[in-house]
């Protein structure tokens, strides 16, 4: 063995070492990533309750999905999280980062205050917010509203308020991450650009529009995509903030991942659940392709 190896050229030896180092990882990525992903596609074409035999049913699961009003409601909820949450959180994060970037004293402390919620466990924070949203006399927000002379609100118990009520802690928890990324992007813009613009007599709006925002584009694209993916995959918070993981009154807050979880592990309907995961995969893939396009087309 030793003799065989020492007879090899340096390049050959390197190749042998490389494949030795990669053997276990390749087995891992094949068995725990690629094979399960293919299996998910295969399952989406089957009917299976985990115990009996798997039965191939073609596109039946997808047809069922198309005819299922709850699925469309769930998909609508998922995009409602996205369409409300994405602009709100990016605008808020940009405003905070933009002003934080210009502060000289106490910047680190302030940034830490904004960042801390990002490190919390969604499950734990779901409980805190669930407590805030309780009806009186328990809920803090209703107690404050009463004290200030406003009407009490049903929050999580209302079909219209529940989804935004879940979205608030989601935005709250992600804000710190977005602020840090925006600040890194802002710091990377050379000071001399601003100075040159000021000498040319550009106003602060003009500087923002023509220097800051274009140069911040890579950070913006990165956050646009990561935030979208996070919102489309929302689960932990919704599961824990609504009693028993049901997804709110009349499914008002139920996102796609919760629906997948309930199909698979509540009703043991593995085929239908897998078909929904394929839908999620396609949406996320489209987003990733969009990111690549946006980054490639930038001047």
């Amino acid at each position, binding site marked *: 063995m030793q003799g065989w190896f020492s007879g090899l050229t340096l390049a050959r030896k390197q190749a042998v070492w490389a*494949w030795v180092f990669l053997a276990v990882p390749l087995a891992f*990525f094949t068995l725990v990533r690629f094979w399960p992903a293919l299996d998910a596609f295969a399952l989406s074409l089957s009917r299976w309750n985990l115990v009996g035999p798997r039965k191939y049913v073609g596109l039946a699961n997808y047809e069922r999905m198309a005819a299922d009003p709850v699925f469309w409601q769930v998909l609508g909820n998922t995009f409602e999280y996205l369409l409300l949450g994405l602009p709100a959180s990016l605008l808020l994060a940009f405003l905070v980062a933009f002003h934080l970037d210009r*502060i000289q004293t106490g910047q680190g402390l302030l940034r830490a205050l*904004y960042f801390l919620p990002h490190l919390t466990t969604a*499950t734990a*924070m779901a409980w805190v917010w669930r407590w805030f949203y309780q009806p009186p006399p328990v809920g803090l927000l209703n107690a404050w509203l009463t004290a200030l002379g406003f009407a009490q609100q049903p929050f999580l118990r209302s079909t219209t308020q529940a989804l935004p009520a879940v979205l608030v802690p989601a935005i709250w928890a992600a804000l710190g991450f977005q602020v840090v990324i925006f600040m890194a992007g802002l710091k990377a813009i050379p000071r001399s650009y601003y100075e040159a613009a000021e000498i040319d007599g550009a106003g602060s709006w003009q500087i923002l529009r023509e220097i800051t925002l274009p140069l911040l584009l890579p950070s913006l694209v990165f956050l646009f995509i990561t935030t979208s993916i996070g919102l489309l995959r929302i689960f932990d918070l919704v599961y824990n903030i609504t009693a028993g993981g049901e997804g709110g009154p009349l499914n008002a807050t139920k996102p796609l991942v919760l629906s997948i979880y309930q199909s698979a592990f509540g009703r043991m309907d593995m085929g239908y659940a897998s078909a929904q995961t394929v839908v999620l995969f396609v949406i996320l893939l489209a987003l990733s392709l969009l990111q690549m396009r946006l980054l490639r087309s930038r001047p």
Partner: protein
Amino acid sequence: MKIIRPGRIAAFTVLFLGGLVMITPLLFMLATSLKTGGEVYELAFLPREPTLDNYLEILTHSRFGRWFAVSLTVATISTLSVLFFDSLIGYTLAKFRFRGRGIVFVAILSTLMIPTEMLVIPWYVMAKSMGWLDTMWGIMFPGMMSGFGVFLMRQFFLGVPDELIDAARIDGLNEFQIFWQVALPLVAPALSALAIFAFLGNWTAFLWPLIVTTSPGLYTVPVGLASLSGEFQTDWEMIMTGASIATIPTLLVFIVLQRNIINGIMLTGLKG
């Protein structure tokens, strides 16, 4: 002389108030965990007589201590595995020249496109057939390596000069020794960033541990917290104590490693 403009003071004040709003939920959680049951419904923020009784109660009369141990074990082992394998893979892809290198890199990178939600059902089937359901290994096995870590480590190993590696070869070190003793110490900042991400990711992971465990003795902290739904239904001071126990470790980690965490996020944001 530094000129302090009124606009700056206003901006600072608004940002500071916003920051206070940001940590208000955390402060209420901690303050309530120090209250007695009767005080919860009062509006006062601070407890009249702060007490650690809730913590004693929850650690002795519930499985919280056990869940904490499970979470810590799972997160530690997974993190060590991710650090070792991801840096080994990243190093191999950055510093070895061999046929198939590009394909392996793209293949591992493409796993980032596969959402966990799509894999949990096949993982469950796999764990069931292997007898891994309701075991710690069952919780850990999907996270032993990560495509993200491979990408991060490869980027950093690309910056390690080839001359150093060639010199180590001439000194008679074998390829594993070169990786372990020469290259790895040079990417310590990336390792610490990856360690923090991997640990926090495991500490807060919810979906897969929720699926794979059924006996309460094997819950992680997040899954245990979710199960309190039935047990302490209206004991909000106890629930806030549980939430605090889940949160305090990550807050401590942040206080100690603040710079590494912020820099790590900036790194991934810029390299991503």
